[in-house]
């Protein structure tokens, strides 16, 4: 698209015969070998391996909690992440995680542009996998181009069907792995195989099969160029110090055929290293000609670097005509200044500092997390009640959550109202007249707590404080509310 500033439909003179939309140009990326391709294979294997296998990792949490290391238990409202157990009222941890993820993305961007897009983005990873399957069955760039040009033979039809079948299997297994995060994985696999799993599991597998198949099989680079907002956002975040896949035009230009360039060089005339072989364009999964400079479509995968290095090796010129480099360095070389590395600069320090701060806050709050949680809600109707002896009573709904793995007893006390009397419905009063609630492991108890004043001489509103004390450990949770009177 970079080389078609005016698309055919725009130059058409009449609306009747105009195509409605410029069609997508099919891209046939060529196979390539090299350093970055190897890194991408490794990243692909590791990320997909984690995604597909993680649900099967076990984690012993005792008899009252599931043994799956990572589990989103929607029915019970729990999220298990190794030793961490998150309750619904703690979803802010996820907010923290999202903030952290965004910041890490910013930092990555400041250091090396769109590395996320080129190596780690699920769209890139799955598309890469689908390309690998395609190449394995239908052959490399030239074969595929030829097959698509020629009439469909029985052989190609069979190849194409096989390709789509394998694609669908991968997509299906992608959806399958997804649902395993929401239930005990081995059990669910058995249920799925015997068609006993809940309907919703099949629905989700269906949805993810469909999206994976379409996005990685057909939409491919269009997702990155047209649908994803990140290239647009990151363009605003990046700067001339960020490492980006760069064509070193200071070295490559003027380009020409190998023979011509060599001849020029012999005559002492300026000649670039680029021999205009188009290898960098052929291998590019988004069809970019990197020699035109940094572009929106480029996902920074580094494959053009590998391709060009192969060429440079063959023609005996220094490697890295295309490389991860900064705009500043190219300018510096042209102007005869020395190159500088600028990874540590205000922007990166700033991002790294915020990441450290947010991370430390999260770890701190996780470490200091209480194992008991108290919430108190004042009755709204009626706000207060007269008792027969003239005193005033307020009702509260008290919720106690026990996040321990064993049953605990808690004593509830109230302060702030002199001579206040505490009573409970759905709990018990022990020998000392203390209100005590027993809560089972990993459970929440709701009780009605009644606070009465001594006599009727109470101000219309008094601040009171509830304290819940774990009788086993002495841990406390506090909560403030009001005592209302006429």
């Amino acid at each position: 698209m970079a080389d078609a500033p005016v698309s055919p439909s725009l130059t058409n003179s009449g609306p009747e015969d105009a195509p409605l939309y410029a069609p997508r140009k099919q891209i046939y990326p060529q196979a390539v070998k090299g350093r970055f391709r190897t890194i991408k294979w490794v990243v692909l294997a590791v990320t997909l391996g984690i995604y597909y296998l993680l649900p099967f990792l076990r984690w012993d949490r005792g008899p009252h909690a599931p043994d799956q290391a990572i589990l989103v238990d929607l029915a019970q409202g729990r999220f298990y992440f190794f030793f961490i157990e998150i309750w619904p009222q703690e979803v802010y941890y996820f907010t923290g995680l999202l903030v952290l993820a965004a910041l890490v993305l910013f930092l990555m961007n400041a250091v090396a542009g769109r590395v996320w897009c080129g190596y780690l983005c699920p769209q890139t990873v799955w598309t890469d996998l689908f390309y690998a399957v395609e190449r394995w069955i239908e052959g490399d760039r030239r074969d595929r181009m030829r097959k698509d040009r020629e009439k469909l033979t029985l052989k190609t039809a069979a190849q194409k069907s096989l390709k789509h079948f394998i694609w669908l299997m991968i997509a299906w297994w992608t959806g399958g792995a997804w649902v395993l995060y929401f239930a005990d994985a081995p059990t669910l696999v058995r249920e799925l195989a015997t068609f006993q799993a809940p309907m919703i599991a099949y629905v989700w597998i269906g949805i993810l099969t469909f999206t994976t198949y379409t996005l990685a099989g057909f939409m491919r680079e269009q997702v990155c160029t047209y649908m994803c907002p990140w290239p647009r956002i990151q363009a605003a975040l990046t700067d001339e110090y960020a490492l980006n896949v760069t064509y070193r035009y200071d070295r490559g230009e003027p380009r020409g055929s190998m023979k011509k360039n060599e001849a020029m060089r012999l005559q002492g005339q300026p000649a670039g290293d680029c021999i205009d072989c188009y290898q960098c364009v052929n291998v590019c999964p988004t069809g970019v000609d990197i020699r035109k400079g940094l572009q929106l479509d480029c996902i920074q995968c580094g494959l053009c670097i590998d391709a060009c290095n192969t060429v440079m090796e063959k023609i005996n010129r220094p490697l890295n005509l295309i490389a991860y480099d900064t705009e500043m360095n190219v300018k510096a070389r042209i102007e005869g200044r020395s190159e500088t590395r600028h990874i540590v600069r205000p922007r990166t320090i700033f991002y790294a500092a915020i990441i450290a701060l947010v991370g430390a806050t999260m770890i701190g709050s996780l470490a200091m997390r209480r194992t008991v949680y108290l919430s108190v809600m004042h009755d709204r109707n009626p706000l207060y009640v007269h008792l027969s002896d003239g005193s005033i009573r307020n009702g509260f709904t008290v919720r106690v959550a026990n996040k321990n793995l064993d049953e605990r007893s808690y004593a509830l006390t109230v302060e702030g109202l002199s001579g206040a009397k505490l009573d409970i419905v759905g709990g018990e009063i022990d020998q000392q007249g203390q209100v005590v609630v027993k809560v089972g492991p990993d459970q929440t108890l709701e009780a009605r707590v009644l606070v009465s004043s001594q006599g009727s001489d109470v101000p219309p509103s008094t601040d009171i404080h509830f304290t819940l004390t774990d009788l086993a450990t002495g841990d406390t949770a506090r909560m403030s509310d009001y005592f209302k009177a006429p």
Partner: protein
Amino acid sequence: MAHDIQEKVDAVSGVTTTGHSWDNIEELNNPLPRWWLWTFYFTIVWAIAYCIAYPAWPLVSSYTKGVLGWQSRDAVEVELAALKDLRSGMTAKLAASSLDEIKQDPEMFAFARAQGKAAFGDNCAPCHGAGGGGAKGYPNLNDDDWLWGGSLEQIQQTIRFGVRSTSDEGHSGSMPAFGRDGMLKREEISQVADYVRSLSGLPTDKGADLAAGEKIFADNCAACHGTTGQGMQEMGAPNLTDKIWLFGSDKAVIVEGINNGRGGVMPTWQGRLDDTTIKALTLYVHSLGGGQNP
């Protein structure tokens, strides 16, 4: 479409214009994106199909029913049935257990309270208020004062058969109209009203003859309200010594009560609500805070 408009080509882009011009800014006649058009066509087809399949168009006194025969009522019924199914285990447990057993079992108790709360909102809230706070003449169910008793059994009995209701088993007994029926004179009513106020420590009128009031009380009121005015639950006669007044504690209100008599009515719920719901209601009302334990 654009036959009568002169074809004009925009010099910069080389595209024909639609001929529309606003302040010399002209509209290019570019084709619409194909995916956009298809989406648009699809929504039209969808809308037509929807109108055929589902209830859609209002008519004068009814509406088009749609060929699928879908009704929101049916959908609700399916959901209600599913809900009932979901709760049936607990409901059966409630039905089989006694009130005390339910109260001892935290899980059943919580379920009963939740169900009772819902039933209370539907049936009892119009008189007793959404939270059972009561109103003038309608008892507050949160306090510790009970006209007919506040134990689980007594509350259940009251809910089942009502008060001065159509049921033979309902509570009966009401306060006579001492003034209207000529049993007491105006003067005497005033004296006994003062005396009653003094029972719960309320201030009395200046120069009130409390001794006379006491005598009138002993002769006329003690039979129901007890010799000390402490009330009698078998008759639903309120305790006059406490600080809770169903109709109010002003002298005028008390005089009015003695003059015309009192006797509120609560309907009988047996037959209108099933047994389990009544059980749940009982536990809910008992748990509001005033419930008495035997």
